């Protein structure tokens, strides 16, 4: 169960960011922002072997004392970041992967919507629904 989910555009501005509201969201925004550096590093590192298809799932980006941050990059350089509470039952890698896959799918649906302009913040109810399903229920 994620504590915060963010979708960041290619230009590194957030398209969608949502966190469990009880806690101060600013902290999560900051965490996501700092995680972007790590994402960039991972992308550029893999980018040397451009022949290989880069793995979309980046895995654990970095752990803080409270949280773990996972990253995922699409081929169009759109980044998904999930922040998970460490105190939670440690989620297995597969679960995180499946969460990212779901996110990616609904993100694709949002992009398919002709009324959505790429670069706009995501305002799709379906997407919101999926994200809510992934977030911590206590929120």
């Amino acid at each position, binding site marked *: 169960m994620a504590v915060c989910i963010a979708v960041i555009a290619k230009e590194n501005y957030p398209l969608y960011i949502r966190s469990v509201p009880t806690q101060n969201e600013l902290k999560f925004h900051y965490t996501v922002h700092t995680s972007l550096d790590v994402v960039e590093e991972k992308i550029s590192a893999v980018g040397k072997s451009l022949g290989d298809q880069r793995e979309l799932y980046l895995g654990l980006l970095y752990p803080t004392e409270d949280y773990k941050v996972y990253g995922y990059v699409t081929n169009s350089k759109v980044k998904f970041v999930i922040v998970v509470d460490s105190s939670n039952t440690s989620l297995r890698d597969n679960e995180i992967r499946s969460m990212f896959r779901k996110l990616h799918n609904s993100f694709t649906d949002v992009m398919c919507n*002709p*009324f959505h302009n790429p670069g706009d913040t995501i305002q799709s109810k379906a997407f919101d629904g999926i994200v809510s399903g992934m977030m911590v229920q206590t929120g």
Partner: protein
Amino acid sequence: MDQESGAASAGSFISLNEHEQRYYSGLHSLCQADTSGKLSSSKVAELFKASQLPPESLHKVTEVCGAKRLGYFGTPQFYVALKLLAATQSGLPVRLESVTANLPLPRFVGLKNEPEMRYSTVPPGIEGQGAQCGAAPGSVSWTPAERSTFRHLEASVEKKEPWSPPRSPCSSPPRSPLTYRSYPYTKQRNGADAQMTYESKQSSRPIIQLEQHSSPNNYGTKSTVEHPAMARASSAERLAQQGAVDDSEDDPWRITEEQLEYYTNQFKSLQPDLGALILGAVAKNFFTKSKLPIPELSHIWELSDVDRDGALTFSEFCTAFHLIVARKNGYPLPESLPPTLQPGFMQQEEDIPDTPESAEPLIVFEDAEPRPSQMDRSILERIQPSLPTTKQDMKEEPRKQDAGLKRMTTSQDKQTLQLGAFPERPEPPHDLDPQMRTKTRPRSYSSTSIEDAMKKAEEPPTPPPRPQKTHSRASSLDLNKLFQQGTPGIKSGWLPPPPALPPRPSTSQVSHFINTSEKTPQNKVQQPNFADFSHFREEEESSVKPEEQGLRSRFGPSTEDLTNASKQEVIGVCHSQAPQKPVRRKYHPESQSQETAPPPAMSFPPPSKPAQKLLSRQKREIQMAIRKNKETNAVLTRLNSELQQQLKVVHQERVTLESQLELLRPLAST
């Protein structure tokens, strides 16, 4: 007064007592009469089936009542048929003579028993109002009547819920509407008005052309304009409204046949192959014309694009269209797709009404033509009634002009910032501004009928009014500016025509008025002026290149010298905007000098006829040109913006590349 005449003819033929009258009118509305009074044969078939009579007697009934001969069930035929059903159910032979007997009401089992429930549960007051539909005048009385009927229907709906399951043997499609009946009511409990508009909209839908190819301004205003017009027009329409009441109370998310037909046409206009997909961008343009906010359109898309492929199949398109229509009528968007709108259901729905007809034709028409042809006939016959006529013309016209108008209307979308409800789309642009003008009034459903009727009456002669009406909005602006300019001699009698009235009739009115008050000496004085003006006009035509400017200059002096009101008209018609003002003002001193020649206190006589004809012709030409220019303008601006974006992207790339180059250069040098 179709229903009345029908009832009268039926009444002269058979005598209906009060109860029968009410019951039959209820059943009549149940059968979804369209405006010409023809009843939906599928509904009639259902009704007949529900009477539980053997098929041969149903055939006989159809034959005797005359529907077989006619090929459809009109109101009198329907009433006679009901009487015959009652007769048959009480054991009398199916013959016309049996109709005259005093019979109990025909019993229908397993129907969506609206009229029965209404009859039993609703107090006679409402029944009286329901019966009043044949006789009642004005829409205002209709409004509270409808509202009260709604509330009572709500009550009846809730009562129905518990026993709807036992009614299942009836047929499956009606069952799902039963379950959904409560849904719109719970949502719409507050919005009785919205519901009413939806119902009346449904009735007027066949008449309102839900085509996309006209300015969105027409949307809301046209529907609001038409609702009261429809309500007032004929009792047949009122019945249709009531029929629509039943339908919508069944399920607002259900697509009726007429709607389906309409959506099919729209789909074909976008994509001729019904089996193919409409691309997302195409659909986006199309639905953007409905002027719904983008997030809502986005949500509708999400709901309707079931296979998530970024394109719409035919059923997805119908779903999306229907959702938009519902939204425009005030229904909140559902969170998930209602089952009646899902693509699977639609096909199922199409199958089910077809199969009973094919397997066991309960209603055998002599001309065994398929229903689509009947529908076509119904479309053609709609031309006959006066009010629907105009709309039908407009419906067919836009259809023909689809491709050509598509772009134009998209460009006009950009210009016209006013909101309009979706149903207005089908109106070709010439109806834009009448609706715009009505839009200036609050969107009330009991708007004045006379102006609407006037507007409707004008709509048939299409090409000439069209350009003028597009400029009427500007005309109202210009009128204000004109007044501010303080041209002398403006009499209070020549107040600017209210924005709702189109310019053309008022010009004719004005000219009439002027004719009556003309003074001969002024004529003589005027004519040399006219000679000057036409001379002047020719000069300007040659000299000024942009047509709009030429227009201004042409009409500037002439209009200044004409009556102030006609001046207003002409200038309004010229659709002048700010840039043209200075051009016109140039000729102010000249015109003023000319004005001083005739006595200032006198009002000028009307333009001589040849000048008037010239004027109108020129007006038309100019307006056409203006519209074309606007279209190209809009297209070019769009192109411009897109290119700008591309340019930005390219710039950025260039910058990054350059910076990389810079970084590498010192390395390379060393």
